[in-house]
């Protein structure tokens, strides 16, 4: 700004009021050509995201069409669909099915747990309580991801608080019966799929609460009043009026829970069985195995699944609720 002040004396023979100095001239130029300003404003972020992010993303996708030489372990840089063929091997299909099933279950469970909280926060909490609810959802959302996982490691440990509580309630037998089941069971909760499931639900729950709450808050009270005036019982109003209008919120929340579960590799690594999830497979293939093409092909799976999912969610109107 100092330039403008310092240079005012050296006034140019301007038509009307052209500004002086470099900044002034620039300012006038932007005023005459708003497109130029727009272009200059967009240039840095678009360059950054376009080059750093999209560039790397495309480079990665490109590599999924390469293959790895089984003997030398070198990457062969020629176009092939062989790597995608490898994806269809039973062991890899297993990984994909396991991940998608887990993501689906986690999404359903989060919706069930989240709905009452969101409903209460949107329709009953007022004033100070409203703020408390807001912070009560935001704090767990923003608390450290690893600390949250660590907390569950403490809880689910054999000597931890959950087993202690179950023993006090004389329910240890129930837990043992559950852990004896195939697939969901295991040696202890912290090395079972049930444990992985609980931690996933816990960590992503706030992502489900917020959009549901937003969509519930958007329902006009008059609509519910109208429903009551027309003779609907509260239960009926809920199922016929409120719930359908809250569904876009559920769909929006499910985008987060589903996508985040699909790509996570740390939770199943720390709390779970030795069976891999997609994220772990990607990590393993790019790391020690050095098989970047297969890792890249694996990352295409969540992208495609999410693409389909987003398409369906859009049809349900989820994007208006984010």
């Amino acid at each position: 700004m100092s330039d403008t002040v310092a240079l005012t004396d050296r006034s140019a023979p301007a038509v009307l009021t052209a500004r002086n100095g470099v900044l002034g001239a620039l300012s006038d130029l932007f005023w005459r050509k708003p497109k130029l300003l727009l272009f200059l404003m967009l240039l840095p972020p678009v360059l950054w995201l376009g080059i750093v992010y999209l560039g790397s993303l495309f480079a990665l996708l490109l590599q999924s069409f390469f293959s790895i030489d089984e003997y030398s372990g070198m990457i062969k840089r020629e176009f092939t669909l062989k790597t995608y063929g490898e994806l269809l091997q039973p062991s890899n299909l297993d990984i994909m099915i396991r991940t998608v099933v887990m993501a689906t279950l986690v999404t359903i469970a989060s919706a069930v747990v989240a709905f009452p909280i969101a409903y209460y926060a949107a329709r009953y909490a007022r004033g100070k309580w409203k703020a408390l609810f807001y912070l009560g959802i935001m704090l767990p959302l923003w608390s450290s991801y690893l600390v949250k996982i660590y907390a569950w490691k403490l809880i689910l440990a054999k000597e931890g608080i959950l087993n202690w509580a179950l023993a006090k309630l004389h329910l240890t037998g129930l837990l043992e019966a559950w852990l004896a089941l195939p697939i969901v069971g295991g040696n202890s909760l912290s090395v079972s799929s049930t444990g992985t499931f609980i931690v996933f639900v816990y960590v992503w729950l706030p992502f489900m609460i917020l959009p549901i709450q937003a969509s519930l808050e958007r329902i006009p009270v008059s609509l519910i009043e109208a429903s009551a005036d027309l003779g609907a019982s509260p239960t009926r109003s809920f199922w016929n009026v409120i719930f359908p209008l809250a569904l876009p919120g559920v769909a929006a929340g499910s985008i987060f829970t589903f996508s985040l579960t699909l790509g996570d590799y740390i939770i199943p690594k720390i709390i779970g069985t030795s069976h891999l999830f997609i994220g772990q497979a990607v990590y393993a293939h790019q790391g020690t195995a050095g098989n970047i093409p297969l890792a890249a092909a694996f990352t295409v799976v969540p992208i495609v699944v999410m693409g389909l999912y987003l398409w369906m969610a859009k049809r349900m109107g989820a994007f208006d609720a984010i």
Partner: protein
Amino acid sequence: MRSDRKASAPLGLKVATACGLLFLHVPILLIFVYAFTTEDKTYQWPPPGFTTQWLGVTWNRPDVWEALTVSVKVAAIATLIAIVLGTLCAAAVSGSRFFGREVISLLIILPIALPGIITGISLRSAFSLMDIPFSTWTIVLGHATFCVVVVYNNAVARFRRTSGSLIEASYDLGADGFQTFRHVVLPNIGTALLAGGMLAFALSFDEVIVTTFTAGQQQTLPIWMLEELVRPRQRPVTNVVAMVVVLVTLIPIVAAYYLTREGDQVSGAGK
């Protein structure tokens, strides 16, 4: 439901809500208890006794301090970059309608919408393709990319509330574009940028998935934590670090909430 807004909630709803909130908060509270336990080999509950000795032990651990320094440095630089890029983008997108506007918002959201592992592995493979050695700067590069969206969300919401007539009035009164930015636009969006910046800082400070791919020898605090989770060395130190991390992330969240609560809600909802 009755129209009466003061009607109290059905009992079932209260119970379900209370259980849900307990489920959200008890695990974090447990962290605070465990930070003071005397037990150092297992995760025994109830703790056999309480002590504050582990606070001192953690304080004297150079590896914790190093990791903390790297984390703070990375988060600070990434936040600065994100503030500049996010504000520019928000100003452009909210100030005018142009071809490709939707594409730009999609581009901004993409790094956070796609699973972190995809961002991580694509950056890693790009670095190795271009022979860029891993350093603190490669971590910053990754973090800045997904932090932009948080600043952008906050700034866009504020721009939407700032009326365009203010800016026009400033021009009418003879201010040039830069003066208008400095004296009219900036004071208006200042708190939103601060809030967005703090959330971006918290996001970067906590990030682990992308970081595992873009870090070389440098350990950020989350990476340190991850190592401890996979191969526990000294559990009490991990407990204390976990508690400190919770406290440190708590501050920006509460502050961001108070900075943005008038008017636009859900400042952190776009994590």
